[in-house]
């Protein structure tokens, strides 16, 4: 392939092929530490989690456990029979769908602005990076404060603008809490989307635009017919990354609305069962289901993205 490798440049021959072999052995040795670390901290715990999900283990004493088969999954008191689990699944899927769609639309808009020649470009880029740089926990706390039902600045602004008659309980009202969570997530992660889309925009060759401009093609038409198809693959990759991130959402919901059923995500549900209720077996079953669900969505998404890219 195009990557420069030493072995590819060496002529074939008995002595050199032994050199090649020793180089390949060395490559494995160099990868080994990373592999061992990942095996120990990701592979092994994943296997143990699956194993624990087949037992009735309690977190306080993991060794005292009995094998219960699939009871944690399909038993009468199993995860699949818990309406709260399904609520968490629905919340998580809606959250991922809504926030990733909004982030893509806004991210595209901000990316187009960042790509626009202007003396204020550097200022805009710096400003857009600020929400990205703020830790999620901090952004959750900041927004909780701004959205405080009694003293929050957002309610004060909306009241004085006459848009609402009474202060809203943004995080406590079950009808509003979900939209609030999505809003804060979109605020925090749109910059990431915008930066990735900007990178794609900058790879569109300038002569495409030049030719269209000379021919007098309207700007909107250039965008739809030239820019959009060229950046679609990169946008899809960015969407996959963001979707996987959104599907495991934890920090934001835990900090902003931890006790509200209307926003509980799968990750929050799993941690609650495991740590708060100490149900290592049951919690592991929920964790395994979450893992399988996300793996399934990843595979579908990748297959879809591949077909989409080949179609063009």
């Amino acid at each position, binding site marked *: 392939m195009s990557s420069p490798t030493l072995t590819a440049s060496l002529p074939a021959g008995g002595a050199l092929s032994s050199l090649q072999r020793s180089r390949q052995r060395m490559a494995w040795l*160099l*990868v080994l*530490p990373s592999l061992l670390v*990942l095996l120990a901290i*990701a592979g092994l715990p994943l296997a143990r989690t699956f194993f624990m999900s087949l037992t009735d283990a309690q977190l306080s004493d993991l060794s005292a456990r009995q094998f219960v088969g699939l009871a944690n999954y399909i038993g009468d008191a199993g995860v699949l029979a818990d309406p709260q689990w399904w609520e968490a699944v629905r919340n998580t899927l809606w959250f991922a769908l809504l926030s990733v769609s909004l982030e893509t639309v806004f991210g595209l808009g901000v990316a187009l602005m960042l790509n626009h020649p202007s003396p*204020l470009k550097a200022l805009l880029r710096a400003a857009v990076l600020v929400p990205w740089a703020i830790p999620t926990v901090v952004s959750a706390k900041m927004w909780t*404060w701004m959205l405080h039902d009694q003293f929050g600045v957002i309610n004060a602004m909306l009241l004085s603008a006459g848009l609402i008659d009474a202060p809203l309980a943004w995080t406590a009202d079950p009808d509003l809490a979900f939209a609030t969570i999505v809003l804060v997530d979109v605020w925090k992660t749109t910059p990431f989307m915008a930066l990735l889309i900007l990178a794609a925009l900058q790879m569109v060759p300038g002569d495409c635009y030049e030719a269209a401009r000379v021919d007098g093609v309207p700007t909107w038409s250039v965008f739809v017919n030239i820019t959009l198809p060229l950046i679609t693959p990169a946008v899809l990759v960015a969407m996959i990354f963001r979707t996987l991130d959104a599907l495991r959402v934890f920090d934001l919901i835990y900090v902003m609305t931890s006790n509200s059923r209307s926003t509980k995500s799968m990750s929050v549900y799993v941690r609650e069962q*495991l740590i708060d209720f100490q149900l290592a077996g049951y919690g592991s079953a929920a964790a395994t289901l979450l893992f399988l669900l996300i793996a399934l969505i990843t595979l579908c998404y990748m297959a879809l993205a591949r077909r989409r890219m080949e179609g063009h």
Partner: protein
Amino acid sequence: MLPKRLQATDLAYYLLLPLVLAFSLYPFAYAIASSFKQGSALFSSDFWPKSWSAANYVAVFAEQPFGQNLLNSVLVAGGVVLLSLTVSLLAAYALGRVQFRGRGVLMMTILGVSMFPQVAILSGLFELISWLGLYDSLWALVLSDLIFTLPFTVWVLVTFMRELPRELEEAALMDGAGVLTVIFRIFLPLLWPAVAATSLLAFIAAWNEFLFALTFTLSGEQRTVPVAIALISGASSYELPWGNIMAASVIVTVPLIVLVLIFQRQIVSGLTAGAVKG
């Protein structure tokens, strides 16, 4: 060359610009303003405080081991960066510059680990950490944070390793230099900008990590800053000390924003190398 008429796109740009700037900057500016308000001023609707007070900043350090929490975060994030960079430089050299069977599978496996939901292994990891006797210690966090930093640093460094000239490496190997010399003495200095960006991104990820830090530490002295901030509480859940929370938020965020703005070019290239090229 001046355009004959103001383009519609320019108009849209200058209409949207103040909106985007305000939306991006207002929340943090408001947090800074709140952190300097004292007592009942916190609940007034003025943006800037009438009289500036540093009392919240003093209180954050007085009412909990916040200094210790900051040190913990620096130690954990620093340790995570150091470990993942050392280990991943070795792997990135092999994966980026040596053709060997199984390379593609290895790359996909590593990518797979970075995509998987951390909460899915929480109970297995809890068991491992208790078994190693690391519960409620910073080492538990260093170990578990490697799950998401290591795959990321490997992938980004591989893309940069590939671009280095072959001649340098060949010349060094002909002179009898070992492979570690090639990686750390010859490539590392050349990769400096990429390494800086990767380190910074890994540092930020570890600095912000919440789930493991919340689950694997118990005592206030072992907490990292995100957990400390999330758990700041008042007399009742309706009386959260918002001034202290905002002061703590400003303390942990300002260094990050400064670093990000200084290294913005490298960060953008690191992010896009990790995502788009990958």
